[in-house]
């Protein structure tokens, strides 16, 4: 780090950054200009900082592909509409099942035992379905290689 010989110019270092960024007041700008005219060390430092700034400006530090971000944005819209679709579908299916169950329980054309047997078969089927779906979801969540393309 440069230590200016003149204590009155102790902050010239930090002013160098303001100088290359065009963020100095007119007074500070002139002060740096005068200093640079006779301080080789600061002039070299200024040149290094300019080179560093240029290198940073030209670097590729993130994904700057606009098509990628356009797709991500569309993904967001698709995700929202898909979520709404799933909610409506599940609500509709639950309503249909509810109506069916109420109709089945209140029908008078079937005896109590018949209702129990048919009901238990459907409940068993439903329990198996839930169990399989649950297992699949757990596997999907814990599979570390699910995104690996073969």
């Amino acid at each position: 780090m440069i230590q200016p010989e003149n204590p009155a110019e102790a902050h010239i270092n930090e002013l160098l950054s303001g100088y290359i960024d065009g963020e100095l007041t007119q007074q500070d700008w002139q002060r740096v200009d005068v200093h640079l005219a006779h301080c080789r060390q600061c002039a070299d430092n200024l040149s290094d900082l300019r080179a560093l700034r240029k290198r940073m400006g030209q670097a590729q530090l993130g994904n700057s592909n606009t098509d990628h971000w356009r797709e991500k944005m569309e993904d967001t819209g698709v995700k929202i509409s898909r979520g709404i679709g799933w909610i409506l579908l599940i609500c509709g299916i639950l309503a249909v099942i509810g109506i069916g169950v109420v109709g089945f329980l209140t029908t008078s054309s079937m005896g109590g035992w018949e209702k129990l047997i048919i009901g238990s078969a459907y409940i068993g089927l439903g329990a198996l379905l839930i169990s399989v779906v649950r297992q699949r979801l757990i596997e999907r969540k814990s599979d570390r290689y699910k995104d690996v393309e073969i």
Partner: protein
Amino acid sequence: MKKSEMRQELINLGGGAHALAIQILENPQDAADVVQDAFAKVLSRPRAYDQDRGPFKPWFLRVVRNRSIDLLRSRRPVETVDGLATLAVAPDQAMEIAQRDEELQRALSELSSGQRQIILLRDYLDLSYAQIADVLGIAPGTVMSRLHRARLALKEILESYNDPT
């Protein structure tokens, strides 16, 4: 601002926002998720941005920064951060980063998170000092000195790579 204009602005800002999130999260995939979440948040409430309070760019970068910090806080107890060295070997998005910038990214990873962010906001994203202060939530008068210290530290690290003695 119209929503179509906002969408275009967001698409253009995606890369810069991604770079900023990477400097905070030290993980390109998490950073991409944060940027996508920020897109969704901003587009779902476009009126949250008040044009009278300044340009869109620093406002959106502040949103990305806040979301990155939220994610960092939520994952901190379970994950260790090994620094940005992991970026060099991440298979997918790291491929986007040109080989010539790997050295720069490695040097940045040796700085503190605050130093990485301030350099990125100025030299990569071209924000003014006032805008940097706004994004980072710091006093405008401290930007120049912080930025200068960060630049000197980065310069020193890069020089040490070329001169290992």
